[in-house]
């Protein structure tokens, strides 16, 4: 590696670090992403002098880039705001797959009896990369509703996963210490893919953000390992940065949900029995449903309204409608605020992004800790397409899968209006007793349509 290439890699690494620092603050976040992108361009450009192209090599490199650029760019541009989480999962998965393929290719090139310094990171990259690839695809399928969002469990699941993991370790040791031929990577790759699937299947859809973040850290580590295989500093630094920051971010995310990471990853196994108990509690209770006119009048003559947005708002693309309703109410002197649960929507920050798009003033968006005491003095808590984040089961039902998650105290408001499409439970798949509360009025329908009707009703009131 020439001096100039190394120096360019150093510049790229510094830009990645600066980019991450800027990404950690709302004001500079966008620039941070751009700084990191510049670092990427520098790292890629600096690699060119290292390449000794074969005829086939230059062709497949160009073809590969020509295929990848439009897929990545169009995918990222076209995806709806609601589908961004699964898009991130997909981009992460392909990165993990690429890391595994790079390691496989390099291992094959070294022939039999590769040195430990090559074999060990190769095996690591193949296993972790394929787990990340397959796991991300499952996460994508769950969020895209190609698979059910509820945990998929079966008896003996933990044993199966344990055996899978052990088989991978045994094969890895064999490949590193004994194998005369690296062809053994094929079963290793397959086992990694199977483990990725088996690992993510039992995790509920609501926990996918944490899982995606963890798989993101995995891919970072796989990339770093591929860097060791190739002896490339840029890969080692960037991959490790992502691996470390991704691990911390995963912990921060599960903390925001009031859960331990272990509970998120393996929690499904303990809660299988909790299902029937939750279902019976719903029986024999009646639900009060209201007309848009009733609810519009209720809102129009309130002093204070807190809007609790959730995934339903994002699905219905109702962010502009909710802003319009808030504007109407404010014209009448009603105080309006938004209560943003840390995990509202499918991802932390999902609601902020969505409401910012509709130009909702930043000051009206209140985090959970800021606003939870205000529900007591609130006339109406307007829950728009949210469910689990206001479910009191998180506080008073120890058997519930979401027990322990901090919730918004919507139940303390004088009136609660739930805008939902149906009585279907939320993402965590559990019933919400707040729906049956005497203070609660339901407004069934698509969130955007309902909001438009409310706007009309408030104007008329």
């Amino acid at each position, binding site marked *: 590696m020439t001096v100039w290439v190394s120096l360019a890699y150093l510049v790229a690494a510094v830009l990645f670090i600066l980019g991450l620092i800027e990404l950690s603050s709302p004001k500079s*976040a966008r620039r941070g992403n751009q700084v990191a992108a510049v670092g990427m361009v520098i790292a890629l450009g600096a690699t060119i002098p290292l390449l000794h192209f074969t005829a086939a090599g230059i062709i*497949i490199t160009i073809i590969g*880039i020509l295929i990848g650029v439009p897929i*990545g760019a169009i995918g990222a541009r076209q*995806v709806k705001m609601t589908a*961004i989480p699964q898009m*991130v999962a997909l981009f992460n998965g392909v990165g993990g797959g690429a890391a595994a393929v790079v390691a496989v290719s390099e291992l094959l090139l070294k022939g039999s009896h590769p040195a430990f310094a090559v074999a060990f990171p190769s095996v690591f990259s193949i296993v972790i990369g394929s787990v990340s690839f397959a796991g991300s695809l499952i996460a994508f399928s769950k969020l895209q509703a190609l698979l059910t969002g509820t945990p998929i469990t079966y008896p003996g699941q933990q044993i199966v996963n344990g055996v899978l993991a052990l088989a991978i370790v045994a094969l890895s040791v064999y490949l590193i210490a004994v194998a005369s031929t690296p062809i053994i990577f094929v079963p290793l790759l397959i086992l990694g893919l199977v483990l990725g699937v088996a690992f993510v299947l039992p995790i509920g859809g609501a926990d996918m953000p944490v899982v995606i973040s963890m798989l993101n850290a995995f891919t970072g580590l796989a990339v770093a390992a591929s860097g060791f295989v*190739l002896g490339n500093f840029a890969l080692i630094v960037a991959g490790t*940065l992502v691996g470390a920051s991704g691990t911390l971010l995963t912990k921060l995310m599960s903390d925001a949900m009031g859960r331990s990471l272990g509970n998120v990853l393996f929690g499904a196994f303990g809660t299988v029995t909790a299902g029937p108990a939750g279902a019976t509690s719903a029986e024999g209770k009646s639900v009060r449903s209201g007309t848009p006119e009733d609810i519009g009048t209720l809102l129009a003559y309130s002093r204070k309204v807190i809007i609790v947005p959730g995934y339903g708002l994002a699905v219905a693309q109702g962010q502009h409608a909710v802003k319009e309703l808030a*504007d109407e109410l404010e014209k009448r002197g009603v105080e309006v605020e938004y209560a943003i649960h840390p995990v509202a929507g499918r991802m932390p920050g999902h609601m902020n992004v969505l409401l910012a798009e509709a130009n909702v003033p930043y000051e009206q968006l209140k985090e959970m800790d800021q606003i939870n005491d205000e529900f007591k003095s609130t006339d109406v808590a307007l829950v728009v397409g949210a469910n689990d984040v206001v479910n009191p089961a998180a506080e008073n039902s120890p058997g519930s899968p979401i027990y322990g998650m901090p919730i918004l105290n919507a139940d303390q408001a004088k009136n609660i209006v739930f805008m939902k499409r149906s009585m279907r439970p939320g993402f965590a798949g559990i019933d919400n007793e707040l729906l049956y509360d005497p203070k609660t009025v339901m407004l069934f329908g698509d969130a955007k349509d309902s909001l438009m009707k409310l706007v009309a009703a408030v104007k008329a009131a």
Partner: protein
Amino acid sequence: MNDSSLLNEFTIFVLAIFIGFEVISKVPTILHTPLMSGTNAIHGIILVGAILIAATARDPLQIVLGLVAVILATINVVGGFVVTDRMLEMFKGRQPAKPAEKTPPEKTAG
């Protein structure tokens, strides 16, 4: 690869772990998703590795592996940065990003 270069790599690896932890230790909740997406784009650096193996491909297996690696890694890096930028677009100031049907009537007080 000789021992000293392996040791150098390992040193960089360990130091990078500490930096990775340090740089994001105080990130607000609303930036969790964009930050995840941004780091997702950064591990698209695997494109460097993919090009390194693709460039020297000779036999059919290497050609296939190289092509697959370059395609996957390119999607990761391009899609990662673009989708992150799209998310963060929403965070820029209070000025309307695109002209809505009506101009925002209220002045933001603080």
